[in-house]
């Protein structure tokens, strides 16, 4: 499975890690629903560092799309909401 961390690039992750990442992702989702900014930052940081730890960077010239895309390190909840709002905030 290929995962992208926005602002950092793509990593290849073993499919066996899916359950673990989903769990961390669910935690992240919950913080957004609770509107808890500091918990959100913490959960995002946890998820990102786990992905970095188990992922191997994708070769530079690869053109494969990612299955999962993670917000950039230090992203705010507002930035993530904007990403998800779908009204043309993703440039390019």
């Amino acid at each position: 499975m290929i995962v992208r961390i926005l602002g950092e690039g793509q990593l290849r992750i073993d499919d066996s890690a899916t359950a673990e990442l989903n769990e961390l992702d669910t935690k992240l989702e919950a913080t957004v629903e609770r509107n808890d900014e500091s918990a959100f930052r913490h959960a995002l940081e946890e998820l990102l560092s786990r992905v970095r730890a188990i992922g191997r960077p994708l070769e530079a010239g690869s053109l494969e799309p990612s299955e999962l895309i993670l917000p950039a390190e230090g992203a705010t909840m507002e930035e993530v909401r904007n990403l998800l709002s779908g009204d043309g905030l993703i440039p390019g």
Partner: protein
Amino acid sequence: MSVMKRVSMMFRAKANKALDRMEDPRETLDYSYQTQLELLQKVRRGVADVATSRKRVELQINQLQQSSDKLDRQARDALGVGREDLARDALTRKAGVTSQMNDLNTQYQSLQAEEEKLTGASQRLQAKVDAFRTKKETIKATYTAAEAQTRINEAFTGISEEMGDVGLAIQRAEDKTAQMQARAGAIDELMASGALDDMVGGPHDDIQAELDRMGAGHDVDAELARMKGELSQGSGPKQIEGTDHADGASAAGTAGAVNDAQPTQASPADQPQAGDGA
């Protein structure tokens, strides 16, 4: 649904929309490649802009550091001449300068981080654009509609995701740079208007003026005191003091000479004993 999946779906929706707009998939490839090159230019300009901003902040930090050092020296000088009030004034101003400096340092680090991120983004995009160009030519050469469509879609989606990512990085950097420019501009304006100049000791530096005045006064007072002393005690004691010193030095010299000479001088009496001892 999961945050990760939703974000990736948004990226993919964006790519699909662009794909749908194109009638001929080959057209998509060429058009996309053009956009990629434009984005590469943009991200490089972004790196340069952030670097310019960072250098500007660096200059300002250096200026503030010099001011802070100067105020520190002034406070010490003021204390040296017993003017605690002036020293307090200088230290108060120094605290103001320090707080500005801390603020700028934080901004500086954040700009530096942004510059590194953008540089990385630019390198990643470059690698993908190169790969895309190769793939594009291969696909066009072997083009048969049914087979090529999926390969085009995949390559396009992959690069489109990267472009979206880079685009976001540029936006973030632009926001940060704009904030920074506004701040740096405000500080430049303060310096130009003389407000900060006054605060950190420019031409109208009242603390320095006071210290200079006191410094000059101090020298004059000391000179006066010395002259008074010379006049009231006459030249005698000074002369004696000088002579004493000279005598001491020559006495030591003489003593050394005497010591050296002693064996020779003493030899007539001592030598027989020494000879006996041996």
